[in-house]
């Protein structure tokens, strides 16, 4: 990836993080930790990888994205807003009565949301259905779905993985946001899903392990996925929960807690500092 593009995407990712934190702060509830860990992946998908048009969010041949870990809605909303699907200012309405921005993504309300999600394990199945639809209808759109590493404890995830492998859904990319933490603590301590890569391999996926904050690795993984024929791809992205906000990083407690006013100021200062460094 050239340096100009990398700088541009890094700055976008930082702004998306700010939007997510602002939304959660405004709502006084929501899920900042995972929104921050997935921000670089979401940025690459919506600003580089996917064929989407904010002016025509339902266009037939668009690539689809399913946020299977629907609780990081603030991260997705911020990405969509910065991509132009709706005003960035609207992020402050998150979780409020009358807002389109429900606590979990609602495809009926929000332009750019391809599937209603929030109940863990269900998004990946719907993504498989979309990928299968493309095959049945001879369309060449691709389908991306982002799962939490805690989410893959849900049995339905593996029903879907079996379906994807069996149906040779090479137009499907499953991304696991491997930040290592879930509500009750370290995923390895709660009920370990490791080894994640070997599990997807066993379900007939092409598997790529990456650093989920390294844009070169993210780009290379999505490019590699396009060359894979006859099997779906799983990208296991090692990430840091709370990435970019000093006091949130690697703490399970920031899974679903909103920053208070003072914490919000610190968070925004952290992110502004990163942005300034990128600009310099």
């Amino acid at each position: 990836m050239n340096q100009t593009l990398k700088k541009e995407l890094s700055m976008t990712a930082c702004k998306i993080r700010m939007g997510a934190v602002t939304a959660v702060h405004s709502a006084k509830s929501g899920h900042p930790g995972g929104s921050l860990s997935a921000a670089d992946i979401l940025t690459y998908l919506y600003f580089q990888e996917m064929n989407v048009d904010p002016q025509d969010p339902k266009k037939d041949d668009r690539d689809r994205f399913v946020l299977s870990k629907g609780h990081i809605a603030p991260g997705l909303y911020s990405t969509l807003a910065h991509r132009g699907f709706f005003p960035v200012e609207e992020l402050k309405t998150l979780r409020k009565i009358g807002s389109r921005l429900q606590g979990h993504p609602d495809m009926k309300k929000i332009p750019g949301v391809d599937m209603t999600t929030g109940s863990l394990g269900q998004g990946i199945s719907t993504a498989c259905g979309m990928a299968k639809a493309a095959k049945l209808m001879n369309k060449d759109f691709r389908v991306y779905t982002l799962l939490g590493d805690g989410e893959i404890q849900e049995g339905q995830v593996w029903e879907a993985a079996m379906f994807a492998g069996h149906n040779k859904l090479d137009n499907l990319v499953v991304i696991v946001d491997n930040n290592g933490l879930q509500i009750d603590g370290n995923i390895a301590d709660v009920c370990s899903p490791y080894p994640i890569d070997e599990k997807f391999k066993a379900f007939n996926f092409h598997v790529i392990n990456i650093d989920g904050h390294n844009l070169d690795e993210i780009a290379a993984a999505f490019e590699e996925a396009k060359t894979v024929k006859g099997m779906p791809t799983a990208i296991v992205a090692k990430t840091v929960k709370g990435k970019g906000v000093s006091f949130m990083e690697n703490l399970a407690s920031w899974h679903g807690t909103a920053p208070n006013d003072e914490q919000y100021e610190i968070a925004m200062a952290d992110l502004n500092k990163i942005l300034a460094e990128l600009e310099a």
Partner: protein
Amino acid sequence: MADIKKIATRDSYGNALAALANEYPNLVVLDADLAGATKTATFKKACPERHIDCGIAEANMVGIAAGLASCGMIPFASSFAMFAAGRAFEQIRNSVGYPHANVKIGATHAGISVGEDGATHQCNEDIALMRTIPGMVVINPADDVEAKAAVKAAIEHVGPVYLRFGRMAVPVINDHPDYKFELGKGIVLRDGKDITIVATGLMVAEAVEAGEKLAAEGIDARIINIHTIKPLDEELIVKAAEETGKIITIEEHSVIGGLGSAVCDVVSAKCPVPVVKMGVQDVFGHSGPGGDLITEFGLRAANIVEEAKKMLNK
């Protein structure tokens, strides 16, 4: 009734899907390793490229259906009622009901008439579960003619539909030129002023028989077939309550949450009259021939006659 043709509505389901395959190029049928039993194998034979076997994974199957629907296809997700409405309830609620996905759930082997497989497979709760999902249409056809018409109506309706079919062969009672299926509209099979019997699914044939028996005893019973339990034909139910003053409901389903409850919801608000709910009385089923179980659980015409006479003090 030995000379009357009998067909299981699950057969009607498979036959209807196969017959409609060409007319609806976006129709796609999903199954969870039960294609032979749910009769979607009939569709598979006619249209193998649009039949998807998801394996024994009903939760995923419902999600696959939601994804297909979001891309413009019309999926029918098929399994036994127990594993569709039961096991995959939350998937139907969140991935189909909440986004109002254009997914049809074709649930066969509903009720105690499943027979020998016993209680684990006899779903007496599906109507109750599906009724609670906002925007869900719930259809329980009475016979072959109605089941086939219901499949077509479900395709034409945009939004989620739950279709309930049976395993056991049941009399074909609607095979006449006047029959018309209208989503959400009940059918008066016999007019009457003394009492109303509201039936659904394979209990409709029993209700018709009961109506004849009651007439022979000088009791003028109104017989109503409610194939669409949601949205319920409230107007027809309220009119029956007003004009006959007494209602019996009968269904091959728990008396909790099904047709009987739906009828009570309406009459208690709009025209309170006594309602006797016949059905499975808050118990599990058990193994035995389906027909024998229907008799054992008191869901025959003779039982209806008895209840009607009791209500009328005759």
